[in-house]
């Protein structure tokens, strides 16, 4: 069987097994090991556990639970509620203000964490309930967090960009800077959509109420005097201390990126202990428990997806697909379109890290030859891979949301993220038309090349 036919079979079997309802982690493992059994040397089965262990046992990856812990400590304590009350008070006049605030919160957290699911979890654990409490539809609230969370790998620091920089032999500093412009673009697109959608939901809620239907929380017209607003400000303080503390540790050269995960988690716990007197085991257990549940689910998926991508690599599936695209000898922009399409398809099944490792060596040389700036391409590819994080079947951010808010049906979550997928697609077109959005900042700060 040719690698491409084998790839098609692999994809079909994966979809079938996943749709059977088997937990994603086991489904990935089952598909991978059965293909090992049928198509690979018997000795491959002996390496299964070591491969999974080597994947999980990295300081970089294991920072995810600690980032989740930091988010949970704030999000599942009164700190999160106070923070959102203050934001709500200040932005109550702005339609979709809370949605905007959540997008910005994701962006800020993304600047501290290198991973998207961690960003999603940290902001979503407080953000989703708060938005829903104020009338946002569940799908919309989930969409904002799922999409906002993807900024984790576009805004520095970013695990995937580090890998891309090494594979493409490009400057990591330049790549990090290049991600900021498109990151801002997405933030503004997301925020703009949040305003639009919130107004629409507000109008619908208003119409329902005026026809004698139920009153949505959207319509709770709360007035805040300036004095009330100012009074609420100190409640934001713990969050600001945490944010600034971690930023200084990271960008001031005190801690390495993964160390800031531990530092941030500890700082968050200390803050809620001091400010909210939450220091007894009884107080800490709820968010330690939720952190463990979520990390366990997420990291088992990540570990097993390594196994899954190992089989894909061994059977030369992604590589053959990439080689096939390259061998078509397409014109410049068609080549780009095909490659991005392939990244999208791979994004159905693989997390960003695996996509980069497998395809970069094959697609980068022809792209370079076609005259594309590899820094620019790296950023565009990152945005495309961000899309993969929020579309099924394997979309890590979707699973995080499902875990935070289990009562929102997955179909609602997916519907809620769809508009954001379209916005990301729009962003990609904008990046193609105006490459300066990507290259402007690094050229300004590091000099044009």
């Amino acid at each position: 069987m040719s690698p491409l036919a084998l790839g098609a079979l692999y994809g079909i079997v994966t979809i079938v097994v996943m749709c059977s309802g088997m937990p994603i982690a086991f489904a990935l493992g089952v598909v991978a090991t059965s293909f090992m059994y049928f198509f690979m040397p018997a000795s491959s089965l002996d390496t299964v556990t070591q491969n999974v262990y080597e994947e999980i046992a990295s300081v970089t990856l294991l920072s995810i639970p600690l980032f989740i812990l930091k988010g949970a400590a704030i999000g599942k304590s009164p700190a999160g509620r106070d923070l959102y009350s203050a934001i709500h008070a200040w932005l109550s006049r702005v339609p979709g203000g809370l949605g905007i605030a959540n997008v910005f919160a994701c962006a800020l957290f993304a600047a501290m964490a290198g991973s998207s699911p961690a960003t999603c979890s940290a902001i979503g654990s407080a953000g989703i309930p708060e938005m829903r409490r104020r009338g946002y539809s569940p799908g919309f609230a989930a969409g904002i967090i799922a999409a906002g969370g993807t900024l984790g790998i576009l805004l520095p620091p970013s695990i995937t960009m580090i890998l891309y920089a090494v594979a493409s032999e490009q400057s990591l500093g330049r790549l990090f800077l290049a991600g900021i412009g498109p990151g801002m673009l997405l933030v503004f697109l997301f925020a703009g959509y949040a305003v639009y959608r919130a107004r629409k939901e507000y109008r619908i809620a208003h119409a329902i109420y005026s026809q004698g239907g139920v009153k949505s929380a959207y319509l709770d017209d709360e007035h805040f005097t300036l004095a009330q607003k100012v009074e609420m400000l100190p409640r934001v303080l713990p969050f600001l201390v945490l944010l600034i503390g971690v930023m200084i540790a990271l960008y001031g050269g005190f801690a390495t990126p993964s160390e800031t995960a531990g530092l941030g988690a500890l700082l968050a716990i200390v803050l809620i202990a001091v400010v909210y007197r939450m220091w007894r085991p009884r107080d800490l257990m709820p968010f330690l428990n939720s952190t463990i549940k979520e990390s366990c689910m997420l990291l088992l998926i990540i570990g097993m997806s390594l196994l899954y991508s190992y089989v894909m690599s061994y059977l030369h599936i992604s590589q053959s697909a990439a080689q096939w695209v390259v061998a078509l000898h397409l014109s410049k922009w068609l080549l780009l379109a095909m490659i991005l399409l392939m990244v999208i398809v791979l994004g159905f099944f693989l997390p960003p890290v695996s996509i980069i490792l497998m395809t970069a060596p094959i697609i980068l040389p022809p792209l370079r030859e076609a005259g594309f700036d590899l820094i620019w391409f790296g950023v565009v590819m990152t945005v495309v891979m961000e899309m993969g994080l929020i579309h099924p079947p394997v979309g890590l951010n979707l699973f995080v949301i499902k875990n935070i808010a289990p009562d929102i049906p997955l179909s609602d979550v997916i519907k809620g993220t769809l508009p954001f997928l379209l916005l990301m697609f729009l962003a990609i077109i904008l990046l193609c038309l105006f490459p300066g959005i990507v290259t402007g900042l690094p050229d300004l700060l590091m000099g044009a090349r």
Partner: protein
Amino acid sequence: MSHGFDTKPTAGPALPATPDNPVVAGLAGVLDRFNKFALYLSMVALMLTALIMTYSVVARYFFHTPTDWQDDATVFMLVGVIFLCAGYAQSYRGHIGIEALSSILPAAVNAVRLLLVDVVSFLFCAFFSWKSWTLFHEAWSEGQTTSSTFAPPLWIPYSLMALGMTVLTLQILVQVLTRLTDRKQAVTQQTVTGV
């Protein structure tokens, strides 16, 4: 297993009641005790990890003390957290899957599908546990260590992985047996797994 220390009910489906069959119920009880123990242990490990990482920053920056054991210690502890709690997560079906079919299929077909999913998951996890113990044995008998400067023995994390996967396997086994031996089960299960 209770959710006593949750602020609010999370993690989807309600827990199945005690299995009807006394043997299955006994095994479920033992696993519950282990899961609780693993959970508390993991909570401590998680806090310790955050502490150690912070210590490492402080020690290096302010006291110029080399940091060589912290990475291994944190990795070992977090690997322990992930694997030792895998069975706990399974006990309330916290390993997320795509439940698109449950609302489409007739109840009887659904029951068969759910049983089949659990049996295949069980087989995979049993295989993974077996290979984890093999890995543990290799590391133990050859005296393998990590390749870091501190070089602690690898049987430590491998044993955590093997033990955790074994408990996960047993947890799924209990769920399979519960499905097979319980009369009331078939009804309650499908109501809780909707998309």
